[in-house]
């Protein structure tokens, strides 16, 4: 239930943002996290950004998601 996945902020409009989960784009809410800007890595739970993440660690997970997507295509 408490699953959360890292994503990169692509664009922000008021308290909504478009994020990129290793190639998959989704709209999320910034209603419970302040100080987020374009390019930041955040952790997403149930459609909300809940914290900023350290860039290199988030990248590891997103890289794995991209690899998974590529394997699924093959």
């Amino acid at each position: 239930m408490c699953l959360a996945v890292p994503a990169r902020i692509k664009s922000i409009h008021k308290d909504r943002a478009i994020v990129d989960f290793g190639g998959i784009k989704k709209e999320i809410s910034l209603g419970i996290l302040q100080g987020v800007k374009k390019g930041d890595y955040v952790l997403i739970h149930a459609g909300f950004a809940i914290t900023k993440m350290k860039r290199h660690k988030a990248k590891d997970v997103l890289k794995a998601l991209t690899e998974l997507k590529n394997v699924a295509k093959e």
Partner: protein
Amino acid sequence: MSRKNKEQIRLMEVCGTHTMAIARSGIKKALPKNIELISGPGCPVCVTPQKGIDKAIKIASIKNVIMTTFGDMMRVPGTNNSLHSLKGEGKDVRVIYSCLDALNIAKDNPDKKVVFMGVGFETTSPTVAAAVLEAERERLKNFSVLSNFKAIFPALEAIAGSRHLKIDGFICPGHVSVITGSNPYKKIAKYYKKPCVIAGFEPDDILKGIRRLIMKLRKDEYDVEIEYERAVQTEGNPTALRVLDTVFRPVDSIWRGLGLIQKSGLKLRKRYKVFDAEEKFKVKVPESYPLKGCICAKILTGEKLPADCKLFKKVCSPESPIGPCMVSSEGTCAAYYRYEG
């Protein structure tokens, strides 16, 4: 007294997501025999009492109601049926990913009453609080929340204080701690002398967490450590905590397995009464009784293992679950069924 190398050590992984990660990675089997991992009450679906499910079913049966909830709640058996079976009977019950989806359904269906049946801990409750604030801003009066949210710390205290359960230390939930930070664990560590390590969800995070706990027990260090440093900060997420406190107030709450725990539940504050499904529908359901033969309550506190249950793997399976610990994908019984042979 410090722990000797061969002394039996019982550690509790509080969070259902950890239970699943531990089962999937086979960590339990790889540990030395004297280190025991006990699954805790951190599966929100599992600790929701049957009465809470009966209430959701009764509201979902009302004309013009669209009931929304997370997928795991659908098949949890109430006294007579489940939300899933109600959907089969033609009632409008929808699985959603985020409470924001329920807001959108409310916007698209102004002539219907849209209810979100919410379960979860501190990771999830602030997202629902933010959705309530948005509903207020947009005057979406056809949206309401049936709150079954719980606060994990009062339950942890109940477990830490139990002489019966004899837990030595806690592997603490990573994503709850993203919101709460590490400070609320201090009382559990210092007063109850149970070291706490906040761990991430990868197998190496969990192994590091176990190692840190053993080291702390050997050195009599009763404190809190953040292993999941890439996401958790000491002070947590102050915005989320503020939003949560604006919308909800703590109330006494019943946990399946643990009973009544003071100030461990969340109810919408008076100002947001119009969004409180309890206030809006005022449904009453009779007291519920434990499911016959199901020992979920004892499994949730680490007192029994799934294998101790007469129903496990015989009549209770993920395809046809009897109790909530088998229904939820993060329930201890579901984890044991899939991964522990």
